[in-house]
């Protein structure tokens, strides 16, 4: 796996992030986000984290995109009107971003950051499932807790109003 593959994936991801920011319609912005998530997932495969890559693909590129699209469609009537209203000066505001990114890229490549962090030896088991279940079980409890909280939130905000 050469480093060039990594560069290509990263470049594509930056481009789709750029598209997400500069897109005129909200829907395109959300889809560009999904694209960026998918590319992130691929890069995670390349970087040796297959399990997390699958999670990222199914949850972020899938679930979160669905949430965003449903929110956009639920708030559609007025937000479409606004988008039409602002579309002609949209580009005026956002063309700064590619310029800033270019400047940022040039600055970052010229800054020489030496990076010699000595990484100590560890005996963490190499299998993610072992690590998650045996070592980080507090995090799993945390996930259960936050899912409980999330379920309360969702039932509060997404409930249909009963007509009394």
């Amino acid at each position, binding site marked *: 796996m050469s480093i060039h593959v990594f560069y290509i994936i990263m470049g594509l991801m930056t481009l789709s992030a750029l598209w997400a920011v500069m897109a005129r319609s909200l829907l395109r912005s959300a889809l560009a986000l999904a694209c960026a998530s998918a590319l992130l997932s691929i890069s995670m495969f390349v970087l040796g984290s297959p399990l997390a890559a699958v999670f990222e693909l199914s949850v972020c590129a899938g679930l979160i995109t669905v949430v965003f699209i449903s929110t956009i469609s639920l708030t559609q009537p007025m937000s479409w009107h606004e988008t039409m209203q602002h579309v002609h000066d949209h580009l005026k505001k956002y063309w700064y971003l590619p310029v800033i990114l270019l400047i940022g890229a040039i600055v970052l490549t010229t800054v020489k950051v030496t990076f010699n*962090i000595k*990484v100590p030896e560890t005996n963490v088991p190499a299998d993610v499932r072992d690590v998650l279940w045996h070592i980080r079980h*507090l995090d799993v409890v945390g996930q259960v807790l936050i899912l*409980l*909280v999330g379920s309360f*939130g969702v039932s509060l*905000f997404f409930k249909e109003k009963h007509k009394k």
Partner: protein
Amino acid sequence: MLSLFIILPLAITVIVNILPKKMVYPLIGAVVGMVALVQMAAVFLPVSQPLEIMRSLGELVRWDLAVDSLTLVMLLSIGVVVAVTVLAGTQLIKDKEQYFQFANLVLLTLTGMNGVVLVRDIFSLYVFLEITGVASFILIALQKDSDGLEGAFKYILFSAVATIFMLSAIGIFIMSAGGTSFGAIQAALQASSGNIMVLLAIAAFMTGLFMKSGLMPFHGWVPDAYEGAPAPVSVMLAGVVTKAVGVYTLLRVVYSVIGFTPQVKMILMGFGVISIVLGALAALGQTNLKRLLAYSSISQVGYIVLSFGCGTALGFAGALFHMFNHALFKSLLFVNSASIEKATGLKDMERMGGLGSKMPLTGLSAGIGALSTAGIPPFSGFWSKLVIVVALWQAGLPVYAVIAVLASVLTLAYMLMFQRKVFWGKTLEGFQQVREAGFGLMVPTIVLALAIVGLGIGFPLLFNTFMLPVDRLW
């Protein structure tokens, strides 16, 4: 054994949601209150002699949890404020279903905060910070009114950005440490102290924590969130959530992980002083009661960070004590504001006046809370301010000590303004019907006011029992 602080509320939440509604709805407030009271009792009972069943339960889960005096003070504050919140909520949230959701979310926030103060591992710390955060978001927007939703959104935005900063720092920390526990990271940071990446990571982490504590200039979400939240939620938010999530984490991470380098001390003291002064000045100009209390909170957090930043044991004790006192007097003041809001329907102080004759207990306790905030004897706030000023003086920082004292004068000024506008003078026309607040609001008011007075009078006796654990910690 310590894992019970997390498992018990979690189990109760699950059980309470499975049981039939008719059985659970009237009892939920009492259940959550009981959990909070048990927590307060557990802080004082010796942890070294648990019951056999609890010991065997504790053996089931081996988590990296630990207690020290900082954690104990936080556990106590959490218990007190949650009990007060749930009790005040009975008066302020009349809808049974909404109260059920409220109590459940409060219980989950309690679990999150317990986790934050008990863990000794940087990623679990992040997980529990997020749990507390999400539960708070939902609580702020609980009644779905326009102000609440707006305040909640601002809080989400600031909290998410702070999380991003902290997570990037955590990534660098874990990479250089090979593990996630505080001890491992502390060793790694000391080994690679000059590395620019590590320094950037430390700066990013502290910035994230400043944003979560509401320290200036990152305080943008605090006034809106405190004002927009429903009244009992404001009590909990101001009393303990910001302290557990922001200030405690800052103290814990600087103490256990980053260490007291001169730059860290300078940053802490600098930002602390800015918050004290600007928060007090902003509070002077407020007409909305809850926003005044919000800016006052920002100012008091500045005191805590300033005292902690001077780096001595006495400074640490002052910070701890002031954090606990703040939980007491700020909760008291917010409960009073809730009583006022319920009785008059107003939050704007310009339209209030002369409520003191109609609501004597509220007026008196608000006076106690106000004077304690300003640091007037014989209330508990006086002692913690005194310890802070003495610690600063002893650490060779007389300028900061003088600023702290002058800011106390400012605090007194805006607190007196609040008292005058709301309680003194002639009762205005529209307020003839106003009566004292009900049971659920009065009990916490009286208890908190008595606690403030009691701590204030009894402090000289308690000082040694208080300083000893801090000395052992240091």
